[in-house]
């Protein structure tokens, strides 16, 4: 019997800060032995630093990149320890955990992706997946905003996507900054401006609670039905496998039955998030 509590050792292949204030760090992990396991966009891993603890992080990469990429905000004991990692360090990983974005449902449809801040991580995975199989999907739209340009993740790749023309991109920051040529304004407003059609479309949204709160009414206004809107929830987690009881919302465990939920599912649950 496999022991689902035992982390697998992985080595830090790359570690770099994303934001000027060094609050966000991206790390790429590769297995010490063997290949990266197969996973789908939207899944997460529990990263384990022995002696400090474990914490869940959404996977930002896709399996064919050969690495697991995570972007981590420094907040507590485990994330501070992760921020101190350098290339060559070994950490433990348990994964892939959770469910994934319903890419089967997305076949042939238009996909609108809405995100804010560093919640963008798993959406990088989703976008790369969609772009790799571009012909299987319809129009792709991305609305992504952050407080400042340096808090936008994966800026070099965003530029690439913009140049490729494969996606309609609306990248925005809160307040005008010198040298910034993109949109200025909060994500809900920019989404309303972009006004993607709900016709034959699915919407995926990941962002901080404040963004979600103000974006939901816009999504409703645009006419997206709750069954077509998906989001990824976060909760304090420990076991990540639906046993310790901590992350449940109603009858669902965010770690096991989520973290991806449809709005239609969420509307039936107690609003504890």
């Amino acid at each position, binding site marked *: *019997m*496999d*022991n*689902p*509590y*035992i*982390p697998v*050792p992985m080595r830090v292949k790359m570690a770099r800060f994303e934001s000027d204030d060094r609050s966000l760090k991206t790390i790429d992990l590769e297995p010490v032995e063997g290949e990266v396991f197969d996973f789908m966009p939207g899944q997460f891993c529990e990263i384990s630093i*022995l*002696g*400090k*603890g*474990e914490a869940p992080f959404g996977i930002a990469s896709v399996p064919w990149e050969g690495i697991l990429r995570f972007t981590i905000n420094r*907040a*507590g004991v485990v*994330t501070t320890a992760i921020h101190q990692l350098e290339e060559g360090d*070994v950490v*433990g990983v348990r994964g892939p955990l959770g469910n994934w974005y319903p890419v089967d449902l997305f076949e042939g449809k238009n996909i609108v992706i809405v995100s804010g801040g560093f919640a963008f991580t798993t959406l990088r995975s989703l976008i790369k997946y969609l772009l790799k199989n571009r012909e299987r999907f319809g129009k792709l739209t991305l609305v992504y905003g952050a407080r400042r340009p340096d808090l936008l993740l994966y800026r070099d790749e965003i530029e690439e996507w913009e140049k490729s023309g494969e996606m309609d991109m609306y990248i925005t920051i809160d307040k005008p900054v010198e040298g910034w040529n993109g949109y200025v304004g909060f994500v809900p407003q920019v989404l309303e401006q972009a006004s993607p059609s709900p016709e034959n479309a699915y919407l995926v949204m990941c962002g901080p*609670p404040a963004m979600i709160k103000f974006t939901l009414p816009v999504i409703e206004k645009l006419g997206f039905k709750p069954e077509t809107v998906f989001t990824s929830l*976060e*909760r*304090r987690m*420990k*076991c990540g*496998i*639906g*046993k*310790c*009881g*901590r992350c*449940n919302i*109603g*009858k669902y465990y965010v770690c*096991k039955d989520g973290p991806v939920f449809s709005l239609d599912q969420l509307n039936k649950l*107690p609003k*504890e*998030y």
Partner: protein
Amino acid sequence: MKRIEKNKFYEKLNGMIGEYRVFAPSGDRYRYIEDVSEIRFDGLLTKMSPKAHFLPQEEELFRWDEKENIKVKDVNDRYIVFGMRPCEVRAVTLLDPTFDTEKFPDPYYINRRKNTIIISIACNEPLETCFCTSFGYGPFTKGDADLMLVDMGDYFLGEGDEDILNLFGFTDSEEDYKELKEKAESRIGRIEIEGIPEKLEQIRETDFFKKITQRCITCGTCTFLCPTCYCFDIQDRNRLNGGKRVRVWDSCMFKIYTHETSGHNPRYEEHRRMRQRVMHKFAYYPSLYNQYGCVGCGRCVTYCPVNFDIREVIREAGGYNG
């Protein structure tokens, strides 16, 4: 029916200590005993339930050395849990759907569960706080026990696994316990459980939970004494030459249970935590596994410092027109 003289039974059990680790009631809780003389029944129920055997309050998941090589303890023990009540036996079967799953089987729990012989004792004299019959079973239900005993004074009647009955040396008996069973069942106060899961979902966002939680002080007494509660925390311990990762009991009633590092706490207010507790046992578990997450043992009622009474709450929920 089979029967055995009590002293003969205990003698045989005593002889098995060593080959088996025997977990038995010893005062306010169950302990791993060295000798049957340590067995003490202080009233019908112990304070701490025997779930501590299947899910220890502190359990090592693995340890590591200075080089961070991970090692899991190799446990080859065999166990006997003696003296469990039918409610406690049922409680263990309620833990199975969470821990013994196909996708992420919990090896620690499964190992103990597989290698434990459960010997239960029926309840001749249920307490005023018992309400087990509300859940479709009773004080004389064998359930998942390997052997169920009935206390007849100097001797036990027994029913269960053929091999275990023979192992102890039970002999045939014409007696049965039907009368005792009926008498015991008649003493138990049932609560009306029909339709409660749906009703609770209906009143989920009303003031009902605010109202009932007023007196709750959100300690962990009910959850720790409860035989079906299983929430745990995982903590890393640093030691001189390495360390270990353990799991320890936790409680959804504690304020910091859902506290996130950012400072956000979705269940900061007391009534949110009480709502989670009540609905987990009486709405979510039934919708997932078709069974209530409560066995009606009444420990929470007896030991709550402020007399929060779940029986009363369920009754009130049933009739609530908020």
